[in-house]
């Protein structure tokens, strides 16, 4: 294969890598290329990219600091809000307690008044009940005596008014 290739013009003769006549040419252009790339990189590209990266880093750091600050502020605001809320709560509790006490006082007074009235009414009622009861008891004795006299008369006896009264009184007592 290789021997056939060598016969042909313009084709590879053996390994082109080992064709030392082209080495100076390659080395020269390689050095030129390397110098150009080195200059481009060291003068333009690398400082620029490095600056961009540093910029970004500082921006991120600043942003993080700002975020931290905002967070601090938010925490403070929350604390203030909680404080206000707690104050409002105690205030409300105080107002409620005062209102409750007020109401209790009114309630107590009204209750006392009502109690007094009820007691008066009760006493009055008891008095009238007692009167009625006495009245009723007297009436019962009267009716019983009359009934007894009638009964005795009807049975054909002669009713001694005094004896009947005594008997009825004794019965009523018993």
């Amino acid at each position, binding site marked *: 294969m*290789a*021997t056939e290739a060598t016969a042909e013009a313009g084709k*590879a003769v*053996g*390994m082109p890598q*080992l064709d030392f006549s082209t080495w100076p040419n390659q080395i020269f252009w390689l050095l030129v290329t390397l110098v150009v790339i080195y200059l481009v990189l060291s003068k333009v590209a690398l400082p620029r990219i490095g600056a961009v990266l540093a910029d970004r880093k500082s921006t991120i750091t600043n942003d993080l600091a700002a975020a931290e600050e905002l967070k601090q502020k938010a925490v403070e605001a929350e604390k203030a809000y909680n404080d206000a809320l707690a104050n409002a709560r105690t205030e409300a509790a105080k107002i409620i307690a005062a209102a409750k006490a007020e109401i209790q006082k009114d309630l107590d007074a009204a209750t006392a008044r009502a109690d007094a009235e009820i007691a008066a009414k009760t006493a009055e009622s008891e008095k009238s009940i007692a009167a009625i009861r006495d009245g009723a008891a007297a009436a019962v004795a009267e009716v019983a005596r009359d009934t007894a006299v009638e009964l005795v008369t009807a049975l054909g006896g002669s009713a001694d008014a005094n004896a009947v009264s005594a008997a009825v009184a004794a019965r009523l007592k018993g």
Partner: protein
Amino acid sequence: MEGELALMGKYIGAGLAAIGLGGAGIGVGNIAGNFLAGALRNPSAAPSQTANLFVGIAFAEALGIFSFLIALLLMFAV
């Protein structure tokens, strides 16, 4: 060197030299396999060792490339 015999010797030599690449293959596989075994044991340490992995593979491979070069030299340059 001229003649059929020299040509034959050249090709046989090139073929023999190419066997050396198999050794490089074994070496590279050995390195990669052992790296993987180690990485599975301790995955957290693996990323820090990839550079060593590639350096090791490069050293192992270079020797194979030498024999490849000998094969090429026999084929095309002798």
